[in-house]
């Protein structure tokens, strides 16, 4: 089932001008219903739709190490897990079972390394060490993909709550801007270049 997850190389391609070569797919296309996950938007305190609460807590704990909470909010505060739950139940349904299998492997590794199966109960240092050991796996890359998507997608998909993802990097979604847009064009105008 790992063909439904992302390889490291494939993952990076999503940052290009156009996403391509990204999923390694060996099956014929599944035509999913139109991507109207927005209709399934999560609200505060919503229940999970695709995930059970225990596994949701584990995925949320992983997301919290990918975009941690430090001096500023991270994946947890942005509600990334609700995005993940949303898309694993809709446009990325093909990823659900492989992600469960990946989580089980991670938990088994945690169990043998630290004697604790539950990822969420490990210390931050242990969690980071464990994740670093699986950094090249499709499971981790897909987890990273979903975490980032949930951090920066429109809030109507369930994550990016209170626009925390956008605020973090200095992006503001507006329909209108006026020049100057940055420092250098303001300087250019001031100097009459």
């Amino acid at each position: 089932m790992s063909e439904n997850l992302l390889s490291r190389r494939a993952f990076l391609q999503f940052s290009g001008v156009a996403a391509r070569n990204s999923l390694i797919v060996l099956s014929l296309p599944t035509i999913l219903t139109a991507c109207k996950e927005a209709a399934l938007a999560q609200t505060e305190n919503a229940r999970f739709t695709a995930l059970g609460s225990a596994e949701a807590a584990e995925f949320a704990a992983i997301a919290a190490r990918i975009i941690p909470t430090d001096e500023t909010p991270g994946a947890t505060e942005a509600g990334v897990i609700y995005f993940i739950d949303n898309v694993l139940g809709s446009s990325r349904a093909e990823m659900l079972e492989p992600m469960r299998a990946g989580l089980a492997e991670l938990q088994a590794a945690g169990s043998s390394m630290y004697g604790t199966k539950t990822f969420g109960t490990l210390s931050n240092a242990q969690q980071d060490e464990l994740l670093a050991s699986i950094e090249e796996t499709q499971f981790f890359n897909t987890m990273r993909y979903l975490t980032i998507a949930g951090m920066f997608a429109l809030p109507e998909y369930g994550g990016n709550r209170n626009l925390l993802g956008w605020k973090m990097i200095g992006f503001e979604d507006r329909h209108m801007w006026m020049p100057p847009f940055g420092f250098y064009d303001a300087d250019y105008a001031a100097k009459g270049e």
Partner: protein
Amino acid sequence: MAWTSFPTREEVDFVVVGSGAAGGIMAKELSTAGFSVVVLEQGPHLHPGDFKHDEWSYTHNEELTWGRRKGHPQTFRKYEHEEAKMVDSGVLNYAHNVGGSSAHYSGNFWRLRPIDFQEASIRGPIAGTNFADWPITYEELEPYYTKVDWEIGVSGLAGPWDPPRSRDYPCPPMPVKASGVLMERAGKALGYEPYPAPVAILSRPHNGRPACIHCGFCNGFGCEVAAKSSSAVTMIPLAEASGNCELRTGCTVSRINTNDAGRVTEVVYWEEDGTEQAQMAKAVVLCANGAETPRLLFLSESSRFPDGLGNSSGMVGKNLMFNGSSNAAGLFPEPVNAHKSIPTTRVIHDFYTIDPSLGFYGGGGIDCRSLTRGLPMAAAMRGGTFSGSSWGSDFKKDLMMEFTHTASFNGHCTTLPLSTNNVTLDPTVKDKWGRPALRTTFMNHPDDLATMKFFMERSMELMDAAGAIKKVGSYAENGQTGGVHLLGTCRMGNDPATSVVDRYNRSHDVPNLFMVDGGSLVTSGRGQPTMTIMALAFRAADHIIQAARRNEI
């Protein structure tokens, strides 16, 4: 307005397949000249109010650019001896909607220059390639470039950097962005001549459309205020208002039928619910782009046209060109905010023709952009551009600085036409309609790679001159694996043995069949081909109208 409607079993004057850059112009020109026109478009008719700032949907769920998730898989291989593999998103990327890719493009409107049309003669042939002169000159196309400027709507500044023009731009250049200032200052310091980027985005109201409000969602998105000059907001409304044009959306063409005389008679298509229809027509104009037009020709094979309709030359699908690309990203001490406003505001064309003594063919231009189209998710997916961090606290801190403080100087350059780079029908993979998937075979000529490297190096020098604190450059050193400029696959030429359409875009083999889109280009130009596709469409329409009036189609 009463909707125009034509019966399928009576001949209309023209069926136009595709409503994009060329198809929109063809529909408007033919219908306003009094001919009956049916336009068949696979996608929906989206209006400005339908477009959203929705990166997840547009970039990852194929909202406009249909691919595997929407039932339109594609396959790719570098060489013909390999088996092509299915890839997730499109290799050949284009938008499926009225306006085609002119709805989601960046609107960079570089004209070709006189040398582009005669470069093979001037520079000499390049062994192992199909590098050739065009059958037309810049002078012949210039009036149509000017027509594009004024009818479609282009903003720019005429100057010594421009190829010769018969009329000024209708709109002044767009306001310079911080990334443009960085490139302009760096370019001048290095002795180049940076100039305001010509763009099909309105800097002031024109033809009843408003000026850009700088929202930042151009590339890959549709314009919410119709300030971006797509054919959907410039040409299609005029075609519909003529009363002679019926736009049928959600219609996917399966084949073009011909009669015993070798003439096109009807276009067969599926409506959205799968109902098969066939529209009879006196003539057919294929404007389905450099990927879909060759696929349709292949699918329309018959005993009379065993290698595909209009393919006696064997050149249909061949000579696929994308335009090379490269970039250098730089981190700056102060905010750049490249995510605001249009993608690019300055261009450097001082390397339009690279010195042949360097030992390879090539040329291009450099513009200034965001590295990741100004998109938050894309920036984060890429990971720390200058550190390589990809998760954790360091990754987060990198993103917080990089998103607002990065500019990218991008090279756009030549691709050589090769028979071995092509679009064909995949032997096994099918789309949702059961049609063979598009199969791309593509590996850049060594000169393409050298040209991309050359432009990355120039961009890196510019980054130093601009005062970047950190910089990183890249190009497709192992060859490009896809593109948005789909060029060369139905090339224009005087010789029916080596080209698909004549100098007026008429099929050499089928007198009432025309192919007008990126496939017509003989050489790649230096990037940004849509301006030329549109000029060719206006020119072809002029000649088609004259020929039709003389009963010579």
